């Protein structure tokens, strides 16, 4: 930042201050060596490796990837975007949990109150809903992308299976959230969906009983699917996502080139 000093003026002073701050003990204890946020970072091959290797990012990415895997047109970022949408849905979902009680009729009143009483309530709810639809779409498109690239072939067979389970879990997560507003749309869409389970041979009635928590849909069903939606399914999907991401790296990263 010597040049900044040479220029004098406020810019130089600020540069010096920021450099000093970013080299302080507190700051450097937060950002490990090689982080671009640290003072004195220089763009060297070694630091480029450290940015990934020395940080939590190393759980998701190796230091280097095949050149063709970086091309946007190869993966379209669909897997990464699905994960990002999951994060957005988790954040907005936690926000919504503060204002929602899974009982009847309180659930419906709470959803109405989001639009009138809660700052950004309607906006966050919109994000949660459209984000969920978008995630179903990106996960599905990710699967088709992987198929057309033949990326399920050895050694990636099992990761494809994990991926199909993740697709199923995504659908279940979206579907379980569908009931929660407790309005006419939610109730009857859910009725149509859950009735399908009752058609199962032999166990049909038991499946139906377990799904709706009784012989007919009631406030108990709401509580049941609320717990599934905010705890059980997210927990399961995070487990499978961990395996999925781990296997992507262990199986040699992005497949191809074609």
């Amino acid at each position, binding site marked *: 930042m010597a040049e900044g000093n040479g220029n004098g003026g406020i810019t130089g002073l600020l540069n010096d201050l920021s450099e000093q701050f970013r080299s302080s003990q507190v700051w450097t204890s937060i950002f490990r060596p090689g982080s671009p946020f640290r003072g004195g970072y220089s763009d060297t091959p070694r630091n480029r490796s450290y940015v990934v290797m020395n940080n939590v990012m190393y759980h998701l990415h190796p230091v280097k990837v095949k050149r063709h895997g970086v091309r946007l047109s190869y993966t379209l*970022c669909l897997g990464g*975007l699905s994960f990002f949408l999951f994060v957005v849905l988790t954040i907005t979902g936690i926000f919504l949990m503060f204002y929602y009680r899974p009982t009847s009729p309180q659930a419906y009143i709470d959803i109405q109150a989001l639009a009138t009483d809660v700052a950004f309530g309607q906006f966050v709810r919109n994000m949660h809903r459209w984000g969920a639809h978008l995630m179903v779409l990106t996960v599905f498109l990710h699967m088709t992308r992987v198929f057309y690239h033949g990326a399920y072939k050895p050694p990636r067979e099992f990761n494809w299976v994990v991926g199909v389970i993740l697709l199923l879990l995504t659908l279940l997560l979206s579907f379980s959230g569908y009931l929660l507003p407790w309005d006419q749309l939610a109730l*009857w869409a859910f009725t149509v969906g859950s009735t399908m389970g009752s058609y199962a041979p032999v166990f049909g009635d038991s499946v139906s009983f377990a799904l709706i928590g009784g012989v007919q*849909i009631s406030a108990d069903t709401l509580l049941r699917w609320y717990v599934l939606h905010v705890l059980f399914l997210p927990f399961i999907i995070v487990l499978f996502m961990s395996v999925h991401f781990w296997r992507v790296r262990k199986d040699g990263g992005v497949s191809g080139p074609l």
Partner: protein
Amino acid sequence: MADIPEDILRRSAEARAKAEGRPVEEVLAEMTGEAPAASSPAEPAPAGTEPAPAPAPPETAPAAPPVASGNGGIDVAALSVETGVPEAILLRATRARAKHDGLPDPTIATPAGGGTAVATAPPPTTTAPAPAPAVPEGVRTQRLLTVVKAGAIQQVKREPTDKVSVWPHLLAIEFVALLVILVVLTAVSIFVDAPLLEFANFNEQPNPSKAPWYFLGLQELLAYFDPMVAGVFIPTFGLIALMFIPYVDRNPSIRPSDRKLAIMIFTFFIVAAAILTIFGSFFRGPGFNFVFPWRDGIFFDDLLTILD
């Protein structure tokens, strides 16, 4: 190092030439000329050749000295100064090696031109000095010394692949993709409200009642098949079939031209699912009967709220 693909080498040379402001040809020539020396690690005598009389210098030695000691005995003291390895260890290693090979103790000086076994040993190939890495001040370097038997050394050649650093190349792309999707999601969420109809009423079923859009393909199937088939067998079988794709498709090639059948079958089911879903969403009205959306309107609550 001659097996680095031409295009990779060229791209690398171009990048370096651009960075240093030199002509590409010059850099390329330099790289091809120097590459073997610069990149071949200081390693012990290649496997297969007779063991050299002297212990190979440790691989981490910043400047591996020429250890070819001619025909005489080995000057352990001088070697120790050059390599930085303690003299006692060098002495012991050299003696052990000699004993193992059944040679006379090389640390006892023999007249020049003496020991035949020593004379036949080829000069070690470790004379290429590796460039000394710039060690920042205050950083302690460490040295590891290990005895590796010649027969235990395997030369593994790795195909050089064309790779780029995740930072900044991949992370930058991912960050932009993330921003784009966030902007789209935010914009949609500002302008389109999520639907909320009247309070749930068990006594008043809307007509038609539709499942969420991603299940509408299945609901559409209900119009053609027995509920047990459309609601249970087809989705269950579909999921299992999806999971078994990698174990059924044994064709190892990933080139589209080699896997026409697989692509055809998969595309068929994807398109079928899409058509069923679109049909169930837009072309089904009251009583789940067929309608034309442009004539009779749209009976799809999720979408209606968007259009309003």
